[in-house]
Structures are given as C-alpha cells and as structure tokens.
C-alpha cells in the first residue's frame, strides 16, 4: 500500500476515535458529523503523519514510545523540582547562557519531539535549530559546560536513544 494512503487511513481512524470519546455515541447525528469532520481532516492533513517507511516493527515502536513517555514524566518531575528550588532560593543561584548541541536524528517529527522534550526537562529551553548542521541552540539556566560534545551528552542523549528506536 502507498504510504500516503496508509497515513490517511490511520489519521481517519484516530480522529474518529477521539470524536467518539468526546461526544455521545448513541446519537446518530453526532456520528454522522464526526465521520464528515474526520474525512475533511483526513483530506486536508492526513498525509503529514507518516512520510517514510519505518524499519522497526510497529509493536516494538509502541513499546519504546510508552517507555519514552515514562522516562519523560520522570525527567519532567525532576525539572519542576529543580526550577522550584531555583525560584524559592533567596540568592537565585543561576548561571544562564545559550549553548549548542548536536543531534543524530533525521526525521522532522523526531526532532520536534526531541526539542519539545528538551524544553520540558531540567533547566533547558530550545531556541532554534540549524537544519543543515543538525544543531540545536539551547538556553540553559545553569550552564555546566560550553563544549558542544559534553553539552550533547548532558542534554540530548537522555532521549535520543529511545527516540531513534521510535521514529527512525
């Protein structure tokens, strides 16, 4: 099957499921409108979800994704405690700066998820990306190192391995 068609079908089913969860399924009018809107969405934006064939097995990718979500929540709790500590501390012990990190991910979706995760985890905020060189500019509230490789180790590598399994 063509990748675009596959992507459209997945988007359609997913949109319909979300609609049914949000509305009253016993009313046939709601169901009809849901199908109409899902079709509209599918034809407008359905082909963006999957753009290339993946090498990994889908079930394996879902398992890796669930593992990623757990890891992400743990990092997020740590991030919040860290920022809370900084904010409450009377001396405000911060050392901000913008550093660069490298990424090995190639897919747009993978880089998007990586930069969003970086923003939500300890003391880091993605500012911009250099697509040619595959570098991310990160605002770091407490700069530990200015070296690009060490910063990559410190910030990006937590998620990158799991994300490679999920998206590539």
């Amino acid at each position, binding site marked *: 099957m063509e990748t675009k068609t596959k992507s459209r079908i997945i988007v359609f089913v997913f949109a319909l499921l*979300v609609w049914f*969860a*949000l*509305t*009253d399924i016993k009313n046939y009018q709601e169901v009809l409108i849901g199908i109409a809107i899902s079709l509209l969405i599918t034809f407008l934006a359905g082909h963006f979800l999957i753009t290339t064939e993946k090498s990994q097995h889908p079930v394996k990718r879902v398992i890796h994704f669930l593992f990623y979500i757990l890891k992400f929540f743990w990092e*997020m*709790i740590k*991030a*919040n405690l860290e*920022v*809370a500590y*900084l*904010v*409450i501390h009377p001396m*405000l012990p*911060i*050392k*901000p*700066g*913008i*550093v*660069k990190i490298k990424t090995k991910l190639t897919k747009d979706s993978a880089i998007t998820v990586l*930069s*969003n*995760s970086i*923003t*939500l985890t300890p*003391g*880091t*905020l*993605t*500012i*911009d990306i*250099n697509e040619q060189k595959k570098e991310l*500019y990160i*605002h770091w*509230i407490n*700069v530990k190192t*200015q070296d690009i490789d060490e910063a990559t180790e410190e910030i990006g590598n937590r998620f990158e391995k799991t994300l490679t399994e999920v998206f590539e």
Partner: protein
Amino acid sequence: MIDTIGIILICIGIAFDFLGVLGLVRLPDVYNRLQAATKCVTFGSMGILLGVIVMQGFTSFGFKALIGIVFIILAAPTAAHAVARAAHRSKIPLAKISVVDKYEEDKELKEETLKEEVKV
C-alpha cells in the same frame, strides 16, 4: 477517597502554578522567565487536569481533560520556543549574569561571511 486524591492532585498543581508565577516575577530576563513559565505552568496545569480526571473517572468529561493534557504538552514548549526565538531575533539581550551565547556568535559569523561574499 477518590475525591481526596483528586483534591490533593489539584493542590499540587496549584502549588506548581504558583511557583511558576513566582519564577516569572523573580528571574532576570525573558529567557529565564520562559523557563519558569513553561515548566512549572505545564506541570501545574497537568496536575489540575489529572485531579479532574481522577474525580470524574473516564466519562466524556474526564476524557476531555485527558485531551487537554496532551494539547498542553504539545503546545506549551512550542509556544516557548517561538517566543524565545522571536525575542532573540529582535535583539533582546540576555541578563548580565549570562556566561555564554553561542547563538549570537553563530549569527555574527554568518553575517560576516555574508558581508565578505558581497565584497568579493
């Protein structure tokens, strides 16, 4: 019992929202403020919505709260990134205590090479 757990979750959420606001007031420049605003407020709002889910169960009301969590996780960091990038592009300086700005260095480098190319 379930109500108590829900209320505790909502209280944790409100506490983190409060810390986020405190950070917004106390931290020095726009980038640091964004850090506090995105992290604590995302987590706080998630706590409140989780409390709602626990109290309501998986009805259509609870499910709406769940979808709210997903949208907050997707939208908050994206918005923070957009604001930070726009701020840097309109040349809002970093706070005085900042130690390094690789983004600025690279931009200057780019402009210099551009000028040299024009001269040649």
